[in-house]
């Protein structure tokens, strides 16, 4: 296990390193002086130059930058005077995390449930109904479904607030828009996985034991179908994160995703860099956790891992 973990951690570290380096040099490639737009205040420009050591050779700049990163220093925002990137993350990330987590967990569970129903009722109406929903869910990107829902629930039915952040009602619509892709993806993945599991020989063994259908499904089919789906968790998390860029801007939620989109529109390069690195590191960490979870769920992998150690 230790060796397996070590390998995963090393790859994760390498990923973060590559990301940080790539971000730095990509920023260097941006045409013009990213710090010298007309709207930027002089003192801000000066502080940036000093912080990045812009008058020094590139290698030295790179080292300064990496050193700052190691100390958790992501620099200053260009447009929001006096605020560090870390400040902004500290303030906005909890909002995104709350929305994202809520949305993700509910969406995962609903997706599994739908997938199980589809597989068990294969070729009957619940399967068709849920698969139509799943296919539509995949075909409807958040920028399409968001305005439609806001119009329906916010303007026509007046059930839910159209924008804002704070109350539970305000969270429902964005969480649904954010989670729709995950629900749809998981429904399809669970359906496919379970249809595969259902034809496995050991399911026949379980049936031959005289177990009721519910026990065969939950005890034998579900867990074995879940193992391959763990691999989808990583992309799923990434998907929710990407979705948060759109959803938070659309519903005016003061989360990190909205700051990120704003920073791109405002060409606030230090904020873009800082958030890119933060997002990257965050995802790499979560993927690492998923890998570990994967090892624990499937005893064969756990064993192979022990054997290798």
């Amino acid at each position, binding site marked *: 296990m230790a060796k397996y973990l070590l390998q995963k951690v090393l790859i994760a570290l390498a990923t973060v390193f590559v990301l940080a380096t790539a971000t730095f040099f990509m920023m260097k490639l941006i045409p013009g002086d990213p710090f010298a737009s007309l709207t930027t205040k002089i003192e801000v420009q000066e502080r940036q130059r000093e912080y990045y050591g812009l008058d020094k050779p590139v290698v030295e700049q790179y080292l300064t930058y990496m050193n700052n990163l190691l100390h958790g220093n992501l620099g200053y925002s260009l447009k929001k005077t006096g605020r560090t990137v870390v400040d902004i993350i500290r303030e906005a990330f909890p909002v995104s995390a709350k929305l994202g987590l809520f949305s993700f967990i509910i969406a995962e569970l609903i997706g599994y449930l739908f997938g199980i129903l589809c597989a068990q009722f294969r070729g009957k109406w619940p399967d068709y109904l849920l698969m139509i929903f799943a296919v539509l869910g995949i075909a409807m990107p958040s920028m399409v479904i968001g305005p439609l829902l806001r119009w329906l629930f916010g303007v026509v039915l007046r059930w839910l607030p159209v924008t804002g952040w704070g109350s539970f009602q305000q969270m429902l619509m964005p969480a649904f828009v954010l989670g729709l892709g995950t629900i749809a993806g998981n429904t399809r993945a669970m359906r496919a996985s379970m249809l595969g599991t259902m034809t*496995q*020989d*050991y399911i*026949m*063994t*379980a*049936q*031959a*034991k*005289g*177990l*009721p259908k519910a*026990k065969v499904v939950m*005890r*034998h089919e579900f*867990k*074995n179908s879940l*193992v391959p789906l763990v691999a989808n968790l990583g992309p799923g998390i990434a998907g929710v994160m990407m979705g948060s860029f759109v959803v938070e801007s659309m519903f005016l939620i003061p989360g990190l995703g909205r700051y990120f989109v704003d920073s791109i529109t405002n060409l606030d390069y230090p904020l873009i860099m800082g958030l890119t690195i933060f997002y990257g590191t965050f995802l790499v960490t979560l993927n690492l956790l998923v890998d570990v979870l994967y090892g624990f*769920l*499937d*005893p*064969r992998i756990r*064993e192979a891992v022990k054997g290798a150690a």
Partner: protein
Amino acid sequence: MSDTILEVRDLRVTFDMYQGAVQAVRGVSWHLNRRETIGIVGESGCGKSVTIKTAIGLNPVSSGSVKGGEVLFEGTDILRLSEKERRDILGNRMSMIFQDPFTFLNPTMTVGRQIMEVYLQHHKASRREAREKALDILRLISLPNPEENLKRYPHQLSGGMRQRIMIAMALICEPAVLFADEPTTALDVTIQAQIVDLMNSLKEKVDTSIVLITHDMGVVAKMVDRVYVMYAGKIVEHGEAQTIFHHPRHPYTWGLLESVPRLDEKTQDDLPSIPGMPPDLIAPPAGCPFAARCRFCMGICGREAPPEIRLTDPEDGRDHTASCWLCHPECIARNGKTEWRAAHD
């Protein structure tokens, strides 16, 4: 026969496939007596496994359906039982050992839980009692370190051990009937012998009757009291094991027996095998299904299906039937005891 515990009468099963309805089982009848072991033998795809799985309601493909017949277990037709009633019998009064211990065990569950699960399903028992029972049964099948092995996952055990686990699972409720679907095929030869011995000894200890499905005549010889030979969804010959081995009457049975390696015949030749393939059961041939592969095929064979002909055993006068025109009195009257029959008498 009052001592009959399980009887299959005229069972018919078809599978709806893309190309058409496959008539996998075409009117099969057999019975099992108490404390008896019967063998259903034939090539793969002849319908022997499907017969059993349908009999206990375990269709491997959902498109399979019973088109007729009955399966009488202790006098009640289990095909007409409710789902719940059937489940109460399954794993409890009737259980099954499957072919491949590598794929028939759940990979993400400890073998202990898999064994206990059966007991807990059919008995009002605590987990602790189930565990004790599981340990008992593992000792009975002489699995080493039962305590430790209960906590293991299937992939941590060898093939022979896994097959013992399958047997433990099947026997924990002390069933009246045990089906064994090719129980030794996936195992090494040495392990095969161990499993055969184990099953023979368990039959006495647990007081069960066994239906063995196999294509391995060697295993049949070591375990079985009576044999049903199945070909293309039909029983083509039936008799006492001794009769089938020493006085087979159906050319297909001859073929099966010839393809068993024998130590007492020192020939350099390759083992003979039956040429050709079984017929397409979407449109079964009108005549004898074996006609196309039969060395002794006659004019009538391609045209009309042979009736089941009752033969008297030359030694003890017990039941022996064969569905072959060669055994028909008309044939014997015309051709006499032909040369090919003599070779097998």
